[in-house]
């Protein structure tokens, strides 16, 4: 069983202590690191303590807000120019200055070698619609309460085909298309076409390609 930690009381006490220390002038909010508090909240948050944690989170945010306010006051209260001049007049070591530069360096990102046309073409290629990969889904077997009865045709295929042969015998010889003239239904045309193909295969009916004529 997973054991859920609950640090809400502990964090709440910590925040209260910080406020008390700040009031006494023992510590400045600017000197305090608040990240561990938020990390503790984040790392131990779970469904069972979410209500308690949301209240502690509000307190922690208030603390952060106060820290920002203190920082803002600090920047506003400073007469930067004079203080900076004073600092330089204090003749700081070169090493000390270099330390100030640390973590302030920026590495610029340049695309000097890529032309605008190249990027435009890349953008067109990237935004082109792609065909999603085909996903093969297995069919689900559905349960049917009633007994499923597969209806079989009353006549066998051969019988039907022979009946068809008898009906067209009177027409033959005739053109291939004229066999289907009297049929208006696409399904019927398809059915009779299949019979005709079989009849051609077993040579009951013959076909002359040059004249497009069916004959026996």
């Amino acid at each position, binding site marked *: 069983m997973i054991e859920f930690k609950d640090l809400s009381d502990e964090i709440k006490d910590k925040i209260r202590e910080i406020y008390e220390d700040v009031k006494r002038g023992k510590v400045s909010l*600017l*000197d305090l690191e608040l990240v561990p508090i938020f990390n503790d909240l984040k790392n131990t948050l779970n469904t069972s303590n979410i209500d308690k944690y949301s209240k502690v989170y509000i307190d922690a945010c208030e603390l952060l807000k106060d820290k920002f306010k203190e920082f803002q006051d*600090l*920047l506003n209260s*400073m007469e*930067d*120019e004079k*203080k*900076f*001049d*004073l*600092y*330089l*007049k*204090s*003749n*700081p070591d*070169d*090493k000390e*200055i*270099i330390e*100030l*530069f*640390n*973590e*302030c*360096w*920026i*590495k*610029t*990102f*340049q*695309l*000097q070698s*890529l032309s*605008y046309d190249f*990027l435009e073409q890349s953008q067109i290629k990237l935004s082109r619609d792609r065909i999603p990969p085909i996903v093969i889904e297995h069919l689900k077997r559905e349960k049917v309460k009633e007994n499923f009865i597969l209806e079989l045709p009353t006549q066998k295929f051969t019988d039907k085909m022979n009946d068809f042969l008898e009906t067209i015998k009177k027409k033959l010889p005739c053109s291939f298309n004229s066999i289907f003239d009297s049929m208006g239904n696409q399904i019927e045309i398809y059915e009779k076409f299949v019979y005709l193909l079989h009849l051609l295969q077993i040579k009951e009916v013959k076909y002359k390609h040059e004249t497009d004529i069916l004959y026996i």
Partner: protein
Amino acid sequence: MYYLSKKKNKYQMGATKEEIIEVFQVKGRNESIYFQELITNLSKYIETLGLYIRFNPLDDHWFISYDDEMSNLVAANPFKGQAKLAATLFCVIICTYSNSGVARVKEIKELRKKKDILDDLKILQEEGYIETDEKTNEVRLTPLIGYQLDLQKLFTKLSLKLKSNEIKPKETSN
């Protein structure tokens, strides 16, 4: 992204707000809102690539940089092993900041005290960081350092350092 990552000349890269607005042919009263949205959305888009949109206050140009952590990882410091030169540049930055963008060579000399800075200024000029007017003996920063150094962060660090009284004025030797 193309315009923000393109080098213009020795000192400049990226584009100004006006240039971007012109490229996208934005007209009317909402151009500033459109520009802000454009920058914000692009910033979110490239964040995952470890890139960051910045503003150079020295020439009002927007440009793209690697994010802070990566900048320090990919050896962004152009003054590695040249502490004296970097310190002189720092002095120029503070002097120009205090004097509306112009610093006199004499003032810089006074602030750097015993260190002879003329050679440093010459190198800084050759490398494109400063421009010196020989007639008036005045020094100005080019926009270059604004692309290589987070000036706002530097001033904040300096303010905090002074605030925490870590710096105690040393007695000047006569």
